[in-house]
């Protein structure tokens, strides 16, 4: 059966080359970015907010803070909304409604991020400018758009987590005289906790990594924001805005920004995997 063994080798090779792309990505981003980190010094790179790459100042603190704030803001909107949808779909809706609603909500994931960004600019930004003040292009606008964009991630993973809770738990709770909501609140949600936390963390990963929509609505100013109405520039926006014309040290600095982003994403993914494993 030489042929069979050969085929197995080929398939293993395909599988290994698929994931070796991940290794390649890591190697190349670090190779391009590390020299600058060494040149500037890690501490200065991460803890200064003076970014003037053509004059030799490479501090990304403002962008790190902006990325974190925009992501947290997105969570404030996305987590309750996403969880509510997941609970309704998994626990409170009849099968027919569920089979209709779930794929419909999943369509949100198919809408391109540039379309979210565009509607943000056309509808949300003027709304913020007219009613809350400031330039409109702001931390708040970025957070709201991202909050909507992470909904599909949070909804679908939470639904899976809730559906994985055995019906025995629900029956037992109902039999003891608890209402449906008490059952969800006290039995189902705690049992599905690790899955829901995974959903939230992966949602955070999406929010941190999103680029185009944030560029369009967040204003891209290079300062640490003092209010949610201030314009901000995230790590992702910084890369996308300057890569087209950057060269030399400046380009290296953008790859170094990429390293920071990459490390944040890896930490989030590892946490999510770790939590899922422990279950």
């Amino acid at each position: 059966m030489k042929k069979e063994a050969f085929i197995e080798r080929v398939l293993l090779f395909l599988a290994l080359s698929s994931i070796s792309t991940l290794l390649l990505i890591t190697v190349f981003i670090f190779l391009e970015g590390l020299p600058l980190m060494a040149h500037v010094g890690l501490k200065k790179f991460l803890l200064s907010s003076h970014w003037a790459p053509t004059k030799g100042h490479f501090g990304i603190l403002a962008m790190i803070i902006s990325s974190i704030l925009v992501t947290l803001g997105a969570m404030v909107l996305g987590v309750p909304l996403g969880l509510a949808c997941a609970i309704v779909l998994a626990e409170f809706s009849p099968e027919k409604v569920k089979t209709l609603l779930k794929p419909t909500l999943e369509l949100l994931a198919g809408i391109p991020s540039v379309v979210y960004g565009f509607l943000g600019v056309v509808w949300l930004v003027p709304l913020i400018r007219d009613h809350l003040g400031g330039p409109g292009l702001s931390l708040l606008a970025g957070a709201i758009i991202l909050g909507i964009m992470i909904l599909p991630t949070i909804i679908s993973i939470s639904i899976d987590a809730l559906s994985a809770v055995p019906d025995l738990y629900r029956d037992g709770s109902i039999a003891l005289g608890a209402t449906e909501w008490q059952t969800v609140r006290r039995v189902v949600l705690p049992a599905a906790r690790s899955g829901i936390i995974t959903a939230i963390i992966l949602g955070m990963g999406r929010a941190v990594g999103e680029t185009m929509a944030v560029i369009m609505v967040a204003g891209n100013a290079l300062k640490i924001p003092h209010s949610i109405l201030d314009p901000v520039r995230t790590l992702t926006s910084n890369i996308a805005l300057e890569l087209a014309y950057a060269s030399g040290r400046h380009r290296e600095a953008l790859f170094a920004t990429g390293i920071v982003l990459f490390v944040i994403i890896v930490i989030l993914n590892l946490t999510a995997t770790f939590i899922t494993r422990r279950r």
Partner: protein
Amino acid sequence: MRLDPRIFQVFVKAGLWLLTGFTLLILVFIIVTISIKGLPQVTPSFLLQEPHDMGRTGGIFSTIVATAYITLLAILLASPLGVGSAIYLTEYTREGWITRIIRFGAECLAGVPSIILGLFGFVLFVMKLGFGWSILSGGLSLAIMLLPIIIRTSEEAIKAVPPEYRLVCFSLGLSKWQTITRIVLPCALPGITTGIMLSVGRSLGETAVLLFTAGAALRTPVSLFDSGRTMAVHFYILAREGISMPNAYGTAAILMISILLINVVAYSLMQRLMKRYT
């Protein structure tokens, strides 16, 4: 006084349904707004004319061609790799450290933000390998983004084929590879197709990866080494630089409606597959 839990539950359920309704409303709002403002722009000449004056006038023909080339290339590269990986993971190995590494790798790859893929494609394909801003660089970078989607959906589709089918094949004397190519893959085909269609949907909407690998040239690309501006990138540039709002809406409408259609068809294919085996 404590509220009766049964009455309390009515309020909670109403609140949760309200939030769900609100989420649906956002979706409807997006689709309706883009359609109402965009669809009137979509005429045969809009689809078939080259863009003129940076996209201010004329149509979007060259961006449709670029999108088709890049998507096709990415799918052609990612499908064999992804489906091959999925076959290996499901049919050839017991759960062990190799499968765990491959699966973890695929999960991580799915989490890599598109701007990082853009950076990577830019340094490797555009600069180091000297492909420049081109259909080739764009297709290669995009293929990496599609791999995890294709691996995951193909794995699910292959796993959904009942194990008895394989046992019957083996008992009839078929080899493993014969079993896979004659029975398992044909049965899993609708699921694999779903994965590939979802990948097409993702490709159409992708911007961050392609902006730095495929470039933004507005000429119709003729070779793999020509730069090409996809519809999504074109829409981004039209909207961001305020070149032409009507054309931006028109491009967005075509983009969004084709992606939604693809996703709906892909989803119903998957449903049919699941129904057959459960």
